[in-house]
């Protein structure tokens, strides 16, 4: 299946105004992790928090909703959240951990859960794993090139970054600046080129912007645990949903992009195999 296995797809957004203000799209990750924390479903969450350098995230073990909200918004570079899971369990003593990650990060977490060779008493602590759609990721130096050189702006005045409608956008000093996504090719990390997973297929629940109108997210409910927590949050009024078939552009666009990523990954993987290089999937 081109979107992986899922129970149901919906269009959704957080109802909380404070979250809507800072969220990248519908604020689903922020709202869901905050809700799970408040309800005691998780005791803490590993998120991509701010660091001393602007737009360069750092894994944060968030113990309050405020800390989770501080991590809202997409940063288009690495945040090795998986590395902080052990910290969350060992140093913070958490028994029930929530986290958010890109598809490749979820690969690391799920492999660890199925084969916990050297990670004692970690696998069973992963209570809620939220996945975000991901087409590719960029080294921080690539972001610097985009902002400073291609868009003649600076990280200091940048308020938001976004990829959509064929462009890489920033919002700076109240102005939207964009340049063609085509020009970002060659700046993404090479490891992404063989990744066949666009929609975080191994998450308890995946979310992202594609398919949903502005300010909303597309959500794919995957595991029983993920679906149940999401449904509870909807019932509690934390998240509102719309039937996915009623929104534009909806699932067809998501499927098209997902298929595109899979095709590209296959092509690159085949190239590498021809060179005698290893490819894990």
């Amino acid at each position: 299946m081109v979107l992986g296995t899922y129970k149901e797809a919906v269009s959704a957004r957080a109802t909380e105004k404070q979250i809507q203000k800072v969220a990248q799209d519908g604020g689903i990750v922020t709202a869901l992790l905050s809700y799970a924390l408040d309800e005691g479903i998780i005791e803490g969450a590993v998120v991509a928090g701010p660091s001393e350098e602007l737009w360069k995230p750092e894994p944060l073990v968030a113990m309050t909703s405020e800390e989770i909200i501080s991590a809202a918004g997409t940063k288009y570079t690495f945040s090795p959240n998986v590395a902080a899971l052990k910290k969350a369990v060992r140093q913070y003593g958490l028994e029930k951990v929530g986290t958010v990650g890109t598809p490749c990060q979820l690969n690391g977490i799920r492999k660890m859960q199925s084969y916990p060779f050297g990670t004692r008493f970690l696998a069973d602590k992963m209570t809620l794993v939220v996945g975000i759609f991901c087409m590719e990721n960029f080294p921080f130096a690539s972001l610097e090139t985009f902002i400073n050189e291609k868009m003649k702006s600076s990280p200091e005045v940048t308020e938001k970054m976004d990829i959509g409608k064929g462009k890489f956008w920033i919002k700076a000093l109240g102005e939207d600046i964009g340049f063609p996504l085509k020009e970002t090719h060659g700046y993404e990390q090479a490891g992404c080129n063989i990744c066949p997973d666009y929609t975080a297929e191994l998450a308890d629940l995946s979310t992202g912007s594609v398919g949903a109108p502005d300010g909303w997210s597309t959500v794919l409910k995957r595991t029983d645990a993920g679906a149940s927590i999401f449904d509870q949050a909807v019932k509690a009024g934390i998240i509102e949903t719309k039937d996915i078939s009623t929104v534009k552009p909806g699932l067809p666009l998501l499927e098209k992009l997902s298929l595109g990523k899979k095709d590209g990954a296959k092509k690159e993987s085949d190239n590498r195999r021809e060179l005698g290089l290893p490819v894990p999937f």
Partner: protein
Amino acid sequence: MLARIKRFLGLEDKPKEQAKPIKPKEEESSQQEVEKVADKPKIGYFHLSGCTGDGIALTENYDILAELLTDMVDIVYGQTLVDVWYDDENNPYAIDDMPEMDLALVEGSVCLQDEHSIHELKKLREKAKLVCAFGSCAMNGCFTRYCRGGQQAQPKHEAFLPIGDIVQVDCTIPGCPVSPEIVAKVVVALINGDMDYLQPMLDMAGCTANCGCDLQKNIVNKSLCTGCGTCAMACQTRAIEMREGRPEVNIDRCIKCGICYTHCPRSWFPTEQINKDLGL
């Protein structure tokens, strides 16, 4: 010795101590217990140049340990968990009585200058259907890679090798130490005959050289790294820091256990097993 082994194999009238259920059972159920013995995998636990950390990991399956030891497996050889082993000093031929077993879990690397260890290793290879390098020392030498002799009371004991350098190894469970969960999962897979689950461990058995630099050589240099941070999570000595989305290994802290590369989702990836485990 023989009597003891026989007792472990359930060949004597006297019920073996390890198999005695903790809760008192009715006559009938204890008979079933004896009948079930034949189906239980016979496991030997061998302690070469190791630290018992992996053996302890086995016992840290607190919730299922009693059941594991009584209902699920028979430990037919071992110095720590059971009191059955080859004692060369008192009887040089005792080793020939080493019982046949389905699985030999071998902890520790093997010292070339210790003939007893070499002898025991070769013997267990004969007696076991499946030889498993249990923990990183047995698999790839781990920190015994740094041994170089010159210490009391055996200054000559300098060369320590992964067991795969001396005998054929069928399967391996890396880790320093291994996690309690992986021990339980392997035992369950063994009982269920789930070879699909064990396959990665069979595939890894040939690998006897590991180091933190595997990440650089086999992942970063091959354009496979995505900066996910799994290696840094898995490292058991905190030798790995993620910098600019890539692992940076403090080689002076690395103990060459190989767990970073083992856990990296780009070294090998068990898609089907994961989907099964997640119910996807």
